[in-house]
């Protein structure tokens, strides 16, 4: 059974419909990529899964329960965590406080020390900058902190919107390394990424979103070989 399932979801902003019957299923322990061009609804899909946008139609299932109507903070309590696009750090707060805020839900509070050690091991830079205001970090450090804050929430499913956007190649590599590490720890991950090649290379499974619905899905290594994907998203 899928740990997270999106069934035929319509959603959007105000009068503007972005998602037209989007569907998706995440298997426990998988790293799944969600790819597609600009404006096809990847971010909207993640926001709708989290409850920041409400599904107009269709439903969202998490661990076998219908969570379509739950607010974002309730979903975070359940273990559904989003690292949002543009990082959305608490810029006026220190690195450490951001991590503390990540561990706001009840489950995460109990595992605070354990998760803190894990993220400091993954991103030693954050440990060094622990007392620095997060708004003054470099772009790469901010992205590390955004991911680390997500891990502090002790997620069952971690969704990451644009992991590598605007970062130097060396940092991108480092972040993808930490992603593999998380996957090896057994975490279920959904990755939205404009670097399609890299995303599919580390994933088990992939979805291609176009015009607000799922256009294509399959094991990542098959998608990489797919003619349409190669032409449209990999520039090959």
């Amino acid at each position, binding site marked *: 059974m899928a740990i997270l399932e999106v069934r035929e979801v319509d959603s959007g902003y105000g009068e503007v419909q972005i998602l037209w019957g989007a569907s998706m299923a995440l298997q426990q322990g998988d790293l799944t990529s969600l790819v597609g061009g600009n404006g096809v609804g990847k971010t909207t899909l993640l926001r709708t899964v989290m409850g920041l946008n409400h599904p107009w139609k269709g439903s969202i299932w998490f661990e076998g329960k219908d969570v379509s109507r739950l607010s974002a903070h309730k979903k975070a309590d359940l273990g559904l965590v989003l690292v949002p696009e543009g990082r959305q750090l608490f810029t006026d707060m220190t690195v450490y406080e951001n991590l503390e*805020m990540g561990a706001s839900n009840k489950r995460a509070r109990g595992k605070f020390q354990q998760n803190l050690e894990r993220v400091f091991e993954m991103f030693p830079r954050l440990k060094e900058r622990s007392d620095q205001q997060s708004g003054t970090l470099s772009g790469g450090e901010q992205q590390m902190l955004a991911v680390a804050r997500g891990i502090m929430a002790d997620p069952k499913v971690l969704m990451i919107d644009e992991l590598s956007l605007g970062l130097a190649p060396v940092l991108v590599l480092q972040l993808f390394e930490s992603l593999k590490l998380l996957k090896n720890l057994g975490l279920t991950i959904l990755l939205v990424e404009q670097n399609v090649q890299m995303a599919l290379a580390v994933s088990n499974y992939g979805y291609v979103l176009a015009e607000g619905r799922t256009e294509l899905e399959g094991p990542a290594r098959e998608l990489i070989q797919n003619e349409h994907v190669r032409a449209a998203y990999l520039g090959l």
Partner: protein
Amino acid sequence: MGSSGLLTSLIDGILIGVVYGLAAMGLTLIWGVMNVINLSHGTIIAFGMFGVYLIFTTLGLNPYLTLVLVAILGLLLGVAIYFIAIQRVIDAPHLSTLLATFAVNMILLGVGTAVFTTNFRNVDYALGNIQMGQITVLGTRLVAALAAVFVAGALYFFLYKTRPGKYIRAVANNRAAAELMGIPSTQILALSFGIGTMLAAIAGGLIATLFPFTILSGGVYELKSFVIGVLGGLGNPIGSLAGGLILGLLESIIPIVMPNTWVPILEFVLFIIILLIRPTGIFGAKE
């Protein structure tokens, strides 16, 4: 006026200024957390005055003890106002929240006027004078200022060292991100509004031990709160204390060189000048 007279009025200015700062703190906290200008702020200050007055005159409790009760009632009133009048319009343009708090103000002020009339009241309580050399300080003023500093310190501790306080800062900083981390932002906003209201009520209670007042007296302090908010930076509760200090000093110095009636004029000229040259306030944060 001799040098001891000058010193006395400076000290008076500082003591009153700190209480002004506390009065402004609730206004700036609410603005800082949820970008709402609370136009019922002044009336809640007046409610704080009447709270202390009523408990003091009917139960005979020490006015400073009654402050604890007034604080609790202020917190509950604020949370109620948030859920009744603010929550529905929190994401609407500023005009909607402004009108909502204006309406709350008219209701509270109307009820207050109907029940208490606009007659002057006085908390008849004195702590005598404290004599230091040639300088005389009223005991009630000293205690009010110390209480204001204590409350400001407690607020600082709450916001920076406790979990709910940090949640308030997180929601103020980025509400959507706070939700994503599992912070129930609606409850946190209600709590923030409650604390802002509580601070206004405490300030009112302290002012009631200093001067006679009516149900309409809060308006003056609301206006002062705006000046202080701009001096100290709206959204910066600790800056309020410094802003209040400046205002208190101005009010003690200006009457030495010109008639008392010039005080509000100069205060608001200062207000406009700061808005023009440094809209985030002298001690205001960046942005």
